[in-house]
């Protein structure tokens, strides 16, 4: 059986992870199909139902301007998911670059780069993100960039660790003695074999990025209204905390379910990709 086949079979056995994957798929579908499935447009105002509790007309209620919360959440999922994916993409790219260079070249290059990682890690990430947002005006794009630029350190460490062991392996040494240059060794020989921990980190990272975006939007320095995002609907929930529980409850639940699903998929991937656990299984 192929390696992919083994991994897929192991992943399927983990029912929680499969459930998570199904939810992730459903969310992506909902985000893509937002114009078709949301009952109202996200900015449509129902003037007779301002801050209305959940009803048949508005299943998740309406906000302080009479906008339908369910529709805003469906449209908001586009923001949350795209911020999650793109921020993580940026982080993974930087992490792979820094990690593979540090791991491949070793020595001075390695110690300088890893010291830099240490320094970046000594800022509480969220605090650093806030500082940058204070200076650059917040928009969806700056948020994606900032979350990505402050979130690559774990990936860099993982990739570096893989490179340190892989570069000593026979297939790399063989390729090297056959005259392959560093570029080929890094990107064609070693990197493809170093990626499995990156997949796991990336999946968990999407979850982290979604949480960060929603926290920023909740604080009013993320995605700016009237563009709906789960975080800024929650901010409205805080302003109406005495009267409208539904403004707080549903968007937060959506964040919880989304983040939980990504975490479950990530953990499932981790187990499926870990060869040590394959061994353990054979012995059982």
């Amino acid at each position, binding site marked *: 059986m192929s390696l992919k086949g083994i991994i897929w079979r192991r992943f399927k056995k983990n029912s929680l992870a499969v459930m998570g994957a199904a939810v992730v798929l459903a969310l992506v579908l909902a985000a893509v199909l937002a114009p078709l499935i949301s009952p109202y447009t996200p900015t449509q105002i129902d003037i007779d139902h301002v801050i209305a509790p959940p009803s048949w007309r508005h299943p998740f209620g309406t906000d302080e301007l009479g906008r339908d919360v369910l529709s805003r959440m469906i449209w908001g999922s586009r923001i949350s998911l795209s911020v999650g994916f793109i921020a993580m993409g940026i982080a993974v790219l930087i992490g792979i670059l820094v990690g593979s260079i540090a791991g491949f070249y070793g020595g001075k290059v390695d110690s300088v780069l890893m*010291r*830099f990682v*240490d*320094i*970046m*890690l*000594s*800022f*509480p*990430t*969220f*605090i*650093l993100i*806030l*500082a*940058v*947002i*204070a*200076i*650059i005006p917040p928009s969806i794009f700056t948020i994606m960039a900032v979350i990505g630029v402050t979130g690559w350190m774990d990936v860099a460490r993982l990739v570096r660790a893989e490179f340190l062991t892989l570069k000593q392996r026979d297939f790399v040494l063989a390729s090297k003695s056959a005259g392959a240059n560093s570029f080929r060794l890094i990107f064609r020989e070693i990197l493809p074999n170093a990626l499995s921990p990156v997949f796991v980190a990336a999946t968990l990272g999407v*979850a982290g990025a979604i*949480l960060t975006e*929603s*926290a920023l939007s*909740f*604080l*009013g*320095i993320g995605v700016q209204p009237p563009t709906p995002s789960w975080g800024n609907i*929650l901010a409205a*929930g*805080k302003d109406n*905390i*005495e009267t409208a*529980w539904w403004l*707080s*409850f549903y*968007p*937060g*639940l959506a*964040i*919880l379910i989304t*983040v*939980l699903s990504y*975490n*479950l998929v990530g*953990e499932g991937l981790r187990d499926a990709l870990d060869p040590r656990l394959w061994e353990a299984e054979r012995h059982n």
Partner: protein
Amino acid sequence: MFGFIGKRLFQMVPILLGITVITFAVVHLAPGNPVEVQTAMSLKTSAEAQANLKKLYGLDKPLTTQYVDWLGRFAKLDFGKSFTDGRDVLEKISERIPVTLTINVLSLILILIAALPIGIISATKRYSLFDKISTVLVFIGFSTPTFWLALLLMIFFGVQLGVLPISGIQSIDVSGLGPLGRLADWGRHLILPVFVSGFGGIAGLSRYSRSSMLEAIRQDYVRTARAKGLPEGQVIWRHALRNALLPIVTIIGLSVPGLIGGSVIFETIFSIPGMGQLYYQSIMSRDYPTIMGILVIFAVLTQIGNLIADISYGLVDPRIRLGGAR
């Protein structure tokens, strides 16, 4: 041991320097300088006044000179004056540190009290109902946005039941209370913030102590202890637990940045006058001296957390201290 601590302190120097470089770079390389921000509100500020302000902040000098000057003042704990009210940044920060530290220490204690038993019981009774339920709860705990949890608790305990206060750290009528009454009032205000700020940590640490304990139980000396007929309780609590605690000690030190990052969110939600709220306010008003001061202090606190983790690890594990293992 002192050699170990000294070496560790020495290693911190380049990192601390790096922290100041990044802080300086973040604030100064960004488009728009502090003077423009400060004068943006009043459009009539003349070019001359702007130049004066620039001179005042030393912005007319090259960046490297600015950095060295700033670092020199920083070393003397002179963080400059706040843009918003002209007060000393150090003074503004130091009057807010106690609240933030108190809440963080209390939530760290809460995390330990709650998470260690959960993790240890899950590990010793692996695959039991308790283990399965706590695993699911831990996953949910990981994924819960704490600001949402805070809102829900405020709605439930504050608005619906009306039993807990939802903002500030003291009631308006607090001056009428005796010392004990004041303490109780203060405690009531802290229940929700401490719980919210510790919540994520409980999930993380219980997961971590579970796997650490599982690792310890698998070791040969545990098998030996069992083989020589020690009662199970003694095997777990004396032999396995001690070794399982080693990596846990590290994680506690490393949880400092998370707690600090969280304090911005929960202090803002619960209107607690701490460092987190001050940071948020300075972000909103672009008060650069305060932002830079707090940023460096937070990063230094993170370093101290790491240091404590390493030192306590060295204390409990002679291999680390004597430099044999690493």
